């Protein structure tokens, strides 16, 4: 990294928290401020004709949410047999009511802004899978593994774009 200007010093020390989760053995995270709740609902109403990443609709306390299979969205193979899959439901500021289905929820990870590398490429293997534009916000090296930070706002955009594709 190049020389850090003084006003950025403060920035790099600002703490951010991420809700981490596992997909196909990799650790990902989304900004916890975007997350409304974690839900274990597994009964979905499929929406035929929608792109394959759309898992379907789910009713959460009277409100209908769209569920996206994050595995498929990121290009991993389908894994309907994984136990304990969870839904991360996002706040409405991220988009109309929706959530993503992940393999397993991890811990809340707190890192400073400086620890995050702003980049859209991670490693060859992941890059080959994830071809969707702005979905990766950055990468953060934790003690023993890599946390790939995803941009929750991009999920719906990809679905909408995918439809016109």
């Amino acid at each position, binding site marked *: 990294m190049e020389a850090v200007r003084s006003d950025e010093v403060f920035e790099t020390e600002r703490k951010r928290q991420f809700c981490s989760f596992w997909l196909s053995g990799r650790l990902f995270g989304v900004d916890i401020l975007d997350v409304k709740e974690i839900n274990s609902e597994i009964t979905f109403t499929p929406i035929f004709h929608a792109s394959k990443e759309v898992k379907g609709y789910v009713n959460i306390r009277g409100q*209908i949410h769209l569920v996206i299979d994050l595995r498929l969205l990121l290009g991993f193979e389908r894994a309907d047999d994984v136990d304990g899959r969870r839904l991360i439901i996002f706040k409405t500021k991220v988009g109309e009511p929706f959530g993503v289905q992940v393999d397993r929820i991890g811990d809340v990870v707190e890192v400073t802004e400086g620890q995050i590398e702003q980049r859209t490429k991670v490693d060859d293997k992941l890059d080959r899978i994830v071809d969707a534009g702005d979905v990766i916000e950055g990468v953060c090296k934790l003690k023993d593994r890599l946390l790939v930070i995803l941009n929750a706002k991009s999920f719906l955009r990809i679905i909408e774009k995918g439809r016109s594709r």
Partner: protein
Amino acid sequence: MDFDRSLIDEFVAEAKEHLETIEDDFLDLEKQKDNPDYTLVDKVFRAIHSIKGGAGFIGLNNINDLSHNMETLLSMMRSGDIKPESRFIDTLLAGVDLLSTLLDDVENSNEIDISEIRDRLTALLAKEISPETKTELDTNVPLTNGGGRDLGFQVNEFTLRNITATKKYLYVLKYDLNILAQQQAKSPVALIKALLSTGEIVDARIETSGDDLRAGLPTGPLLYEVLYASIIEPDIIQLATGVSPDNIINVNLAGIQPAATARPAPAAPEPMTALVPLVPQAALVSAINDSSEKKQLTIRDEKILSGDVDRMPDLDTEGEDQEARPESVNGDRDADLAAAAKIKGERPGTIRITVDILDKLMMLAGELVLVRNQQLLAVDKTDPVARSVVQRLDIVTSELQESIMRTRMQPIGNVFGKFPRIVRELGKKLGKRIEITIYGNEVELDKTILESLADPLTHLIRNACDHGIEPPDVRAKSRKPETGHVVLRASHEAGQINIEIRDDGRGISADKVKKKILEKKLKGEVELAQLSEKEILSYILLPGFSTVEAVSDVSGRGVGMDVVKSSIEKLGGTLDLESRPGEGTAVLLRLPLTLAIIPCLIVMMGDYRYAIPQVNLEELVCLYDEDVVTKVEYAGDKEVFRLRDRLLPLVRLGEILKRPQPFTEDIRAEISESHRREYEQAYQEYLNVKKSGKDSEVYFSRSLNFCVLKVGANRFGLIIDRVIGTEEIVVKPMHPAVKSLSIYSGATVMGDGRVALILDIEGIAKHGGISLEGAAEEIIDQLDKGAGDQETQTVLLFKNGPEEQFAVALPLVKRVERVEAAKIERVGQREYVTIDGVSTLILRLHDHLNVNPTVEREEMFLLLPKHIKKPFGILMSSIIDIEETSIEMNTESYMEDGLLGTDILRGHMTLFIDIYRLIEKAEPEWFSERRLRTPPPEQVRRILLVEDASFFRHLVKGYLEADGYEVVMAENGQIGLDKFNEINFDLVVSDINMPVMDGWEMVRKIRSGLKNRDVSTIALTALDSDEDRDKAKKVGFNWYRTKIDRELLLTTVAEAMQKV
């Protein structure tokens, strides 16, 4: 504004009432032009005047100001100085509009800029007014009482002249509104009304005491001074108004002086009058709210001055307390007015609430419906207590939901109301004469829908006026009345609102649209030829279809029609277009009553439930066992089902869901083929097992369920797994990320908490490739045209004896006559009655059939059959009814010569009489003549009878067989053609309108075929126009006979056979 809310509400309600009718009145006045109805002018004047009065009273300066200007113009009209010419009416109407706007938002009305309209009004005034009048207008006359003291009202000479011309006397009346309210329960509005009934309020002002309140005083005076012109003479004015003499001041009309003279000096003190300096009226009015202006007020009355400067005299309206109470000053107006409001609080309560709250309520009611549905599922139905609780919850919820929905319902007249104006203005602008007639103002629909309807409707009305109605000279040339007519009609129909906008203008020519389609290369000529007229017309709904170039040739209706269409569709409605060149155009809108909660049919497909909106649903059909294979047919690449002689294309929901790509012909063919193969295989296996006799208990156990759905005029069957039931569901829109999917219109949460998708029937039809105005449409058309060709027959049911019920098909009946038993004459064995001066032979059924004898009545009926040349009638003792019914003629249970057969109608066995056969039995010689002239051939001849209605098929077959012909029947042209190619026929008798293949087509094919192409053909049809006769000749029919003259038919048949 601290004025009592209820007072303002009352004013607004009243003012709106006035404005409601005023538009029409203005329009009427304009029509009367040179000879205006002065009572109408007066009415309008009063309406504006009382608005002005009320507005001034509660300090709505803008409304006051505006109505004042309008009033001035109207007063000139009233005095006959100007006529109600269009330019005045235009401006006045604009004024009315602005008034309405201001009234809609009274709180902020004072901030709204009214200068434009006001300037228009004053400009008109300035132009119209003679310089003399102008001076008069500009000249203020200070009014004085008998003693020459200034009364503080400012009136210009013009007004004064006008008033004094009709009203002899001018008074200043003083009221204390608080006392008025408390003691007489009379509201200010009521007071103004009362005053206006006997005179005219020239000016008015209101004053309250100053700001410093003196505690402890029970009432605060609210002084209202009225400059009142009336014909009531001074000695009875007190009686008439109920104002004490002290509070009435006679204005000295004789002493009017030009304004130029100095204002007279304050005269000798006089009891109970206050003098106010001359300030513009508007300022005076606003003084109520503006304390700074209040301070300008100078009280000059000495008596009062001896007390407190700010103190105002208390006025007594009752006249019982004649003494002045100068000390009664209090500004606690609010409390007083509130009290006043309490007293007068009889009017039905209305409150204004924001739509947000309504929406929230609506949403909550929706949620409650869901909870109720869940509860209905969860409750133990065997527990009586729980069940009754749930039932009550059910009822209460439904009612709550309905009531909340009602709060959002508004009459469509709110939108329709503005159209007479628009039409008038357009007519003027375009130089056309257009009238609009509106029906169904009272029809109510959801506020949201109503609001979004205004623009599309306006557009359609504009289109009708602009492009539909022709200029008067063009209309005159095409022999239409010069005034064009636009009809706007709203009506309820089964949970939907129908709105029709119809004009009698030039219409749209399909040929021109076609040309345009070709020009734009939207379709090739071959494709175009296959489109129905309606389909072609629907092209003008495409975006930009006729906007590109000169639009006059297709009357330019494409402009923005796509926008109209899409906004109607957004509301869940549909738009249809009908047009006949030269006769006019109609646009039909169908809209749901409300968007939020809709009744749906819930169906199961695979593991999931889907909701089908009830509005799209026509009926449910379930086929069992062998029917699944035998009743489903294949037409081209489609599976079809014959539903009451109508071909219904079938679409499989399962296949629709499986395939995200819209169906192409190949896909459709693939689907029908795979299902057909699968069915046939299964069926064959079953037949084999059955044949082998190994297992006598084998069943072909299958079922096929489909919903008959309609989209516009189209119908199709949607095959589903099973039906669950109907339910009211709360519609939630689709998530934006999947909104573009055309087969869903929304989603809902079901009773068990799962989400179900709501199907978009139109989207499914399109996805499945059901042509927009396809085959189904054609068949329906045919059915509509050939009313007599339908399977259902209209029959006359009657009795003769006490027991038997008889029937005769109505097309065979000329008419029914009443006969009096006493008038029946006997000649030998025969009975006659005189009808239309002709002795008519009476036939009694029991003479020729083995039935009970006639029940003799004083009055009986005689059935006169059609196509019988000799005067003859069948006696009936009583008529039961006319019924439209499908007939399945049974010839087995009971049969007799003279009957066609029997059927069960209204639960009774009914005998269908064969009129011709009965006549033949009664009077054999009547027909022998024909037999002699054209005897039926000796050797047996074979006739192909093609007719879709089984009733007629059997009827005609009976006639033919009676004459010794061999008859082979076919239900439509296709079957007929097949049989024709199989067997040799001597003659073909065919109906025209038939499903699958009509008579035209069949004969065309016969004539162009190889086999027996010269066979004689007779068209036997209910169609009876020269056009059809020509066409019959052209396609190759030898004869053309209308249904159904037996004699003529048999003669023709015999003739034809002679040629063979």
